């Protein structure tokens, strides 16, 4: 592959709570090329958002990145101090569209006032010049220029979401992380936002990481797909291959639980049980208590991710069971 713009090695983030060490993210390894997108899927509490926060070095205490590297443009982001991260990484190289981004805009300031902020702090651009730039990006996401002077309550949910996306693009980041960018939006608006992100990826060559629990949305935007379970990557590789022929039992179940629009299904597949408590994750393979194929070795040994049919799978029986 061409030089990756983002290279993540052994990224591990734990939360040190009174009840013990929550192993929210363990040994994440992946890279991302320019203009490539990766989808991250998994149930709530599987560490998707923790991974996102680790990438922008913004894990909140009691959480801490325990080890690993996030290499972006030759900088290892996790070793930087807060001030350095703010100057070098956040917004500039990696920016993020947060979950429920619509509620992030402050109601008492105009959209423009809030949009200009990163320009002012990072590049010292103010006044008319800043306004021009903001308006340019508002146009880029398909919004009218006059939105600049409006207050958040005057905008609809989809418009607010676009404002957030426009803001996150202002400093021309290399990587854009979108954490559940379309939850709580209507299907039509959702499809529009997805189209927008696809277009930006193509035209501006931005690499993207999409995080959501909805695999059907991910399939439309990701080149690569990673399935997370209990803080670990269960399967990681080419999206098309994984969708058409999942190799990890968890991926298989997850895909089968999606109701289809054009297919009559008698029963939806379900995954029995609940995701484990990460203070004390199950021994061996973390998925074994819920896995229908689990054998003795799964209880004892944690499977290392290994190459199976063009993707990495962390399962002792990958390629044999599904």
């Amino acid at each position, binding site marked *: 592959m061409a030089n990756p713009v983002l290279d993540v090695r052994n990224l591990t983030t734990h939360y040190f709570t009174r009840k013990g060490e929550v192993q929210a993210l363990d040994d994440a390894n992946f890279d991302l090329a320019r203009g490539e997108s990766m989808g991250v899927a998994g149930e709530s509490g599987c560490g998707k958002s923790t991974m996102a926060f680790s990438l922008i070095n913004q894990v909140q205490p009691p959480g801490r990145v325990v080890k690993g590297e996030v290499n972006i443009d030759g900088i290892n982001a996790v070793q930087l101090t807060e001030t350095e991260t703010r100057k070098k990484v956040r917004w500039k190289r990696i920016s993020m569209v947060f979950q429920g981004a619509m509620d992030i805009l402050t109601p008492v300031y105009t959209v423009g006032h809030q949009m200009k902020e990163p320009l002012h702090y990072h590049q010292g651009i103010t006044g008319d010049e800043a306004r021009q730039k903001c308006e340019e990006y508002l146009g880029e996401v398909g919004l009218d220029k006059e939105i600049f002077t409006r207050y958040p309550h005057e905008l609809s949910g989809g418009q607010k979401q676009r404002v957030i996306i426009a803001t996150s693009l202002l400093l021309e980041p290399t990587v854009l992380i979108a954490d559940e960018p379309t939850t709580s939006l209507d299907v039509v608006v959702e*499809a529009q936002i997805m189209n927008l992100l*696809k277009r930006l990826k193509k035209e501006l060559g931005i690499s993207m990481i999409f995080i959501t629990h909805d695999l059907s949305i991910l399939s439309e935007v990701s080149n690569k797909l990673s399935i997370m379970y209990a803080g670990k990557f269960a399967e990681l590789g080419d999206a098309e291959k994984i969708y058409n022929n999942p190799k990890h039992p968890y991926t298989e179940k997850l895909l089968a639980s999606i*109701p289809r*629009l054009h297919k009559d299904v008698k029963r939806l597949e379900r995954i029995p049980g609940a995701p484990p408590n990460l203070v004390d994750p199950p021994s061996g393979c973390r998925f074994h208590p819920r896995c229908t194929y689990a054998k003795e070795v799964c209880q004892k040994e944690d499977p290392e991710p290994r190459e199976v049919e063009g993707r990495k799978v962390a399962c002792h029986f990958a390629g044999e069971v599904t």
Partner: protein
Amino acid sequence: MSAVLEAENLKKYYTMSQSFFGRLLGSQKKYVKAVDEVDFQIPRKNAMAVVGESGCGKTTLGKVVMRLLDATGGKLIMEGKDVTQLSGSGELKAYRRTTQMIFQDPFSSMDPRFTAFDTLEEPMNIHNIRGSYEEKRKTIMDALEEVQLTPAEEFVDRYPHMLSGGQKQRVAIARALILNPDFIVADEPTSMLDVSVRAELLNLMKDLMSEEDLTYLYITHDISTSRFFSDSISVMYLGKFVEKGEVATVLDNPLHPYSQALLKAVPEPKPEMVEVIKELPIKGEVPDATNVPSGCRFHPRCPYAEDICENEEPELREVEGREVACHFAGEVP
């Protein structure tokens, strides 16, 4: 097949507030027509899905059916009786016992200071179901077992914060079932939940349909779940049904331009679409409901609109095995 619930010309208008001068000068009252002349029938042990974007009136419809809101006009016939006129603690209370609702957000539809036991006991107290503590506890345990919160002893004394989202929604379903209702309004019961939990709950609700003789009005914006869960589907736009019919008929070959557009926007697991920008026939959001467009309500957003659409409102008519409200139904591609 006899219908459990039948709506005829059902209407719910909200009156807009007027300015003081407006009232003095006697200007016309304005209405938001949240539900406007809606007709439907739901046969026993069936589920009808109502789909549409936010602001199309689907939740209002659910609330009118529950009698949480009073209908402005029209009839709502449940088991042969018009329920829009019921009042007081006698008949209305009896109706409420047979009709229950499952709400969208399990995180806020439950009292944080009530244990699962309290939550389930409350409806029994309201409806004067007497019995000793042991009897009630037994009923409640059975209800919890029924929604697969097993072992029930483990869950019965838990507070909402000790339950996961899916478990909370199960308690909410148990709460709806405890009075042995015939009819359930489920308002986006799974939209706050994870994919795999969603699948479990939909399976459960479907099983209950045959085990408990339930009939559902299933309100959702997640159209792909309606394929699995319901028998018929009604697509709603600005207070009106624009297309309704058997779920497979409508979803496989939608005839109304709005249903077509809506279905196109639904994401589906198709990895080969990665680099393709989807074509969306309609853009933006549902227009302001205070100012419903003339003629066909959908015409300003419709890619096929012609003069007639602006002037004449199309009635629902039978086309290819379902009802469609469009002048050009069957003719547009």
